[in-house]
């Protein structure tokens, strides 16, 4: 995924959120090489040069990863611009991105052999190295350098588990926030593959949520892992979502409930917690 410290582009850097988080990322050690906002070329934000287009930024700087701080309705255009310009990885933070836009972003990423992370995701944190997104990577209560790989759809649940891990004396090799939408660019399966290959990771914490088939798919891959997986699925008591008609039932094939995910993960050999605070206890017992 992002195995070496990336050179980062911030799209939407001149907005208030883009500026604030650029300052935080720089302070933590993230290498932000450029920003991009249409019509704002030539400006600087926290000492970072701003370009009008991604292509212009790429002419001057090597860019490994772009993080997009624009509102949901403009997120697709920004991501497509980055992919078409040749940026290999793009993080989309915005929530409420239309799902047709997500499908288009994903298709273009695949065609360019690039990676989409998100949308509706909190970003990624490599404790002691850098962070990209809107998780407070600098918080020593949430993050400490260590050997647990944490992957979560949700930022808030991720924060809770990270807090528990650090309080218990664990640290993270990386925190990967995938996003809470039904379709996201990077899946649990992708994250498991990455942590399995990462020499800095000894065990993996997977924090899933009710809905979609992503956790069940990841479960199919777990038996081939050499590293243990501890999992928690949020939403065991969540109110039932919208029925998606006959087509939804046929596509999901019974997947998507918290019970189905917990069952699939347990059968695959993961250690499944029923309440979030059990995650630490299960890690200790490995």
């Amino acid at each position: 995924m992002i195995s070496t410290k990336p050179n980062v582009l911030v799209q939407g850097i001149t907005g208030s959120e883009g500026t604030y988080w650029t300052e935080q990322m720089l302070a933590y050690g993230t290498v932000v090489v450029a920003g991009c906002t249409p019509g704002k070329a030539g400006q600087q934000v926290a000492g970072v040069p701003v370009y009008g287009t991604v292509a212009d930024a790429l002419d001057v700087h090597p860019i490994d990863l772009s993080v997009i701080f624009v509102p949901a309705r403009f997120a697709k255009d920004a991501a497509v611009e980055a992919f078409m310009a040749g940026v290999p990885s793009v993080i989309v933070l915005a929530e409420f991105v239309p799902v047709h836009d997500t499908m288009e972003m994903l298709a273009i990423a695949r065609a360019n052999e690039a990676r989409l992370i998100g949308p509706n995701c909190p970003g990624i944190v490599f404790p002691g190295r850098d962070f990209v997104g809107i998780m407070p990577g600098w918080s020593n209560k949430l993050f400490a350098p260590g050997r647990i790989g944490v992957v979560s759809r949700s930022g808030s649940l991720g924060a809770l588990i990270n807090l528990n891990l650090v309080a218990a004396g664990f640290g993270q090799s990386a925190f990967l926030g995938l996003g809470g939408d039904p379709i996201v660019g990077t899946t649990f399966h992708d994250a498991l593959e990455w942590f399995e290959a990462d020499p800095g990771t000894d065990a993996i914490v997977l924090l899933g949520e009710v809905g979609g088939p992503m956790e069940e798919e990841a479960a199919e891959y777990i038996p081939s892992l050499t590293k243990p997986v501890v999992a928690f699925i949020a939403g065991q008591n969540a109110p039932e979502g919208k029925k998606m008609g006959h087509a939804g039932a046929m596509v999901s094939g019974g997947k998507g409930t918290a019970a189905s995910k917990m069952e699939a993960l347990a059968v695959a050999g993961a250690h499944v917690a029923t309440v979030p605070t059990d995650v630490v206890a299960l890690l200790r017992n490995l």
Partner: protein
Amino acid sequence: MFIEEHDAKQLIASGGVPIPAGSVATSPDQAHSIAREIGTPVMVKAQVPSGKRGKGGGIVTCETVDDARLAAEQLLGSQLGEFAIDRVLVEACATIAQELYVSVTIDPAAGAPLLMLSTAGGMDIEEVHATTPEQVQMVPVNIRAGLGAGQAMDIAAATGLDLSLHAPLAGFLLTLYGLFRRYDAQLLEINPLAITTAGELIALDAKLIVDDNAVFRQPDVGPERFTGTALELEAKQQDFLFVELDGDVGVLANGAGLTMSTMDAVTAHGGAPANFLEVGGMAYKRATPALALVLKNPNVKSLLVNLCGAYARTDVIAEGLIAGFKELKPEVSVSFCIHGTGEERAQQLVRDELDIEPHETMDDAVKEAIAKAAEAQAGAAR
């Protein structure tokens, strides 16, 4: 957003899909005159935002105009599942030779549109798929290229239908896929798509679900008919996703993932949450109205506030909650657990302004909230 049959049919008809003649009635007399105008026999169909109307008795075939009046009389004002019927669609009956199932939906595993087609159309298509999956074609579509004419012809040909139907069916699939894209659909399902005895295709039903995140760019869609409780409606008007539940522990947390996890913990410790309220993303700045919503639910006997800030600043949430507490002066007990971004200041604010000591662990806060709710219930019973 679920688009009811009649509205969905108007949208697909404007895009070139043939539909039966018909119109919506809100009274038996109106149903009678529509039936007279289009000619009998007619179908009288309850318009509610739900599937499975056929099995629920929401669709009546009427041979005469008087039958249509009677059917409307029986349906209007009655309940179909959780929905009150306030309008019916009165529609001409087609002379059906065969019924097909056609839909375009989103395959979340592939992250791409999926076209489905079966010659075994009708109500039991899920059963058909479960028992004889080979009878349902499932074709992924590359969203960048769109559905190609050649691909549509291949799908039509694979049905085994009469050769004369292949081109019209392929054309229908192309139109349907275009409408799926145009209306930001999560689902566009035609079941059944009838082949008439004259060999024409006609959409006898239409189910359209539009992505809520895309409604802003769909001027022809909506507004949605709201079917939740009064409090849920109030929440929706304030852009909160709020669901009233049967329990007595009010739950307020930041972010959907933490909120669901908190509800799971309440249940695991033997309690019952009174609500699901999503205060995610930027909504963390609106803690005051969020608190008001949770407390308006009369079932709430204790309140659990579980915050774990990452992007959301817990001190900003605490400020909003404290303002709400001072304004609303709730009588229920409140249990706090606050960690993450801004926690030192947030905890201090709660101590200073509310004279409440936050719990160190979420489980302790959950257990106290459950115990306080039980105490309040016991006190009320005495």
